[in-house]
């Protein structure tokens, strides 16, 4: 039996020309996340993953399961930015950074345990994570954010 079907597990991967430390910083520094993650200021400690929208609203506040800079970050995901999605069960996001040849790193984002959060799964799938990751890549490689990458999802899409 295959437990993982449909959108319950989603995997996104991107090569970024940067060091693991630069990518880790981009994922865990609020001033940087605000420039590619729909304007979200994301604070990460070994214990908590907390995200605030541009208006100060709490978009995420949950436990960090693994904190291993600059290689691996695993945290809970709840979409508090949307009342409908916030009612769903929490899911999990894993960030893995692996150095590659040529000054590149492979960044893999796995969003799983979405079995009991179908609306969240649909909302983050495809364009959702892709937009964030291509924005992250552009920002880290060029220092300039993608158009619209710092705007909330409704304004950007």
């Amino acid at each position, binding site marked *: 039996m*295959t*437990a*993982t*079907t*449909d*959108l*319950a*597990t*989603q*995997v*996104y*991967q*991107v*090569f970024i*020309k940067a060091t693991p430390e630069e990518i880790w910083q981009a994922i865990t520094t609020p001033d940087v996340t605000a420039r590619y993650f729909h304007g979200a200021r994301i604070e990460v400690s070994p214990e908590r993953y907390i995200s605030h929208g541009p208006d100060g609203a709490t978009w995420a506040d949950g436990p960090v399961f693994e904190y291993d800079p600059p290689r691996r970050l695993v945290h809970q995901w709840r979409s508090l930015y949307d009342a409908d999605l916030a009612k769903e069960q929490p899911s999990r996001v894993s960030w893995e950074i692996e150095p590659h040849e*040529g000054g*590149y790193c492979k960044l*893999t984002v*796995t969003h799983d345990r979405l079995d009991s959060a179908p609306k969240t799964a649909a909302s983050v799938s*495809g*364009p959702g994570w*892709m*937009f964030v*990751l*291509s924005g992250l*890549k552009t920002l880290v490689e060029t220092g300039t954010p*993608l158009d619209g990458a710092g705007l909330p999802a409704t304004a950007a899409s």
Partner: protein
Amino acid sequence: MDDDRVFKALADPTRRLLLDRLFERDGRTLTDLEGGTGMTRFGVMKHLRILEEAGLVVTRRSGREKLHFLNPVPIRLIHDRWIDKYTEGPASLLASLKNALEEKE
């Protein structure tokens, strides 16, 4: 860095079929993907390896199974780099017209 690999990977109908099947339902085994392609297991494996090298497919172990996931990010990056700037304006109008006419069928 991987544009060539992505274009080459996409330049094959079987590989596009495999991507479409993963788009319909993600996280599938080789056996599952093999069904209905009319290809040998070895042939499908070969195509999946090319897709994996291009970053379009990512594999994950789940117990004893190896699951294949569609990674759409390289296609998005190709889109940002190659499609977006050419499809603004008249080209997008013609594409809409074509879609509208064909949808009537």
